[in-house]
């Protein structure tokens, strides 16, 4: 079928229009996904391959588009809170934080010190959890089955700890405007300390078991090299950016909350390949442990939620942007208010989207098996891309 008015060939699948069969028989069009074990969600990548080599790649998005941004316009400020846990289910608390932070900045609402520390502790715990899952799932993509079991063993402990205060195990809805919904107790503190002591030898074990393993090295070393120019062009952030040696972290570049009072490093790797991104994430787990331990020492007594916190916020007219560092990069919420109880516009900036946009460029000319490794090393969460 040919649409005369638009001049488009609408036969078949709209997204494969750039991938029509050519007279040459050397190339093959291949669909990776939407249901593919290595895409972790419903992501579809159309590939044109010559033998085992990728000539072109194009990600197709939107399979789990849930209108999160539109929902922000039809729900009241406080009613939008549970959505944040579902945008990125792996680092839900960072999204929680980005949204409440934006509303607090718009209203000029002060957050008590204790609440800030609770946020830091829980958000870092959540980051560890996210990195651990990425670690297990990435190795699963590369063909190692056991690591994900170890990762889940550790994740269970964190989930138990977070469940105690937030009530959920995955899609948290814990932060509130002006604080958090529930204070932490002694058992939480004790368990968190235990976990920090437990994870350190585990990380060493992971290094012996996986990081030093020759098979892994062969699959990640010198694979998926991303140059600085590409990263800047697509606005990549997070471990993907730091894996190429650029020291950019929102927690340090644009400090929010009490991060400026805490002492931690921003790990980077200079190798620019998948191994660099792998090592950055593993070091980030250690840094997060350091942050949690310091925060547990420093946490002051006081209220866990500001007494001025409104039940139904009605921020004044204005526009505000608030960014936090998530496990995948810079998470940003741009909020426009017209003075009513409903946001006028909520724009969510998801790091996975920018990181995935680079994929066609990095995948060009690589082996098909390496494309799986590259896609995994970007640490994509598909619901976050589609929103």
């Amino acid at each position, binding site marked *: 079928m040919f649409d005369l008015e638009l001049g488009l060939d609408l036969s078949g699948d709209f997204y494969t229009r750039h991938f029509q069969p050519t007279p040459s028989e050397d190339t093959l069009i291949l669909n990776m996904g939407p249901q593919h074990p290595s895409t972790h969600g419903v992501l579809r990548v159309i590939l044109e391959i010559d033998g085992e080599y990728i000539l072109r790649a194009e990600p197709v998005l939107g399979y789990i588009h849930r209108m999160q941004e539109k929902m922000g316009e039809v*729900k009241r400020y*406080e*009613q*939008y*809170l*549970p*959505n944040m846990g*579902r945008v990125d289910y792996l680092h839900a608390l960072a999204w929680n934080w980005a949204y409440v932070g934006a509303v607090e900045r718009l209203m000029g609402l002060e957050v008590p010190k204790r609440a800030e520390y609770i946020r830091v502790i829980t958000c870092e715990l959540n980051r560890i959890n996210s990195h651990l899952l990425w670690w297990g799932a990435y190795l699963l993509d590369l063909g190692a089955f*056991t690591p994900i079991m*170890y990762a889940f*063993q550790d994740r*269970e402990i964190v989930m*138990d700890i977070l*469940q*105690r*205060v*937030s*009530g*959920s*195990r995955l*899609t948290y*809805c814990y932060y*509130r405007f002006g604080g958090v*919904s*529930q204070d932490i107790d002694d058992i939480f503190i004790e368990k968190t300390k235990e976990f920090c002591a437990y994870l350190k030898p585990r990380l060493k*074990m992971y290094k*012996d*078991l*996986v990081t*030093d*393993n*020759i*098979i892994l090295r062969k699959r990640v070393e010198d694979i998926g090299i991303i140059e600085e120019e590409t990263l800047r062009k697509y606005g990549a952030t997070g471990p993907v950016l730091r894996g190429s040696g650029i020291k950019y972290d929102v927690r340090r570049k644009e400090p929010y909350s009490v991060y400026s009072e805490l002492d931690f490093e921003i790990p980077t790797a200079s190798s620019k390949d998948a191994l660099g991104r792998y090592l950055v994430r593993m070091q980030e787990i250690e840094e997060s442990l350091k942050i949690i331990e310091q925060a547990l020492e420093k946490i002051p007594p006081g209220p866990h939620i500001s007494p001025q916190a409104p*039940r*139904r916020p009605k921020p004044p007219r204005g526009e505000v942007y608030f960014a936090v560092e998530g496990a995948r990069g810079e998470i940003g919420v741009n909020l426009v208010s017209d003075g009513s109880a409903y946001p006028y516009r909520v724009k969510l900036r998801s790091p996975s989207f920018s990181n995935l946009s680079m994929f066609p460029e990095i995948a060009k000319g690589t082996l098909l098996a390496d494309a799986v490794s590259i896609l995994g090393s970007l640490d994509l969460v598909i619901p976050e891309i589609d929103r």
Partner: protein
Amino acid sequence: MIGSKLKETFDGVVSLLIGLKITFKNFLKPNLTVHYPRKTVKPEELTGYRGHIELVPKPENPFVPRCIGCGLCRDICPSGCIEVRSKRIAEEKEIHTPHFGLQDTPLDLTRKVAPPQKTKIEIVSFELNYNYCSLCGLCVQNCPAGSLRFSKDIYLASFSSRDFEFDLLKRLEKQAQARLKEEEEWTK
């Protein structure tokens, strides 16, 4: 050249052996998985967990919820899964007989003598459609009467979505009856 190749192979084999050692050590460790449904997690591990919401009874009467029928939970719920219906019922009107001397007057004085009508709220129905609940906790945290809490009902599975439309009043009644029974057995 050959030397470096040999070294690489040697290091590779060593790394594999270290991996095998770790795997073997873990092989001997006890099993951590909880084999649901043959086993379930301990109740203390559910501290803080949000199950579906349920009503909190009045301290003096376990059959009646604390709810005052304000409808705040229904309004605040992002998923619109709460349905509360309440009724304002008038309490029995006391009719005072008029003063003896006034009884023969044609005026109806009963209304003037009766005290102002008192009303109270009765909750007719309280329904939760758990299919849509996102367990955000906004209803529980905003209830002015403290009439909502999270249950510990977590092992829910069914073939029909109808089974997750709960009548919370009935649930409260069942709980109250169970509690009464328990107390009776306790006193025996």
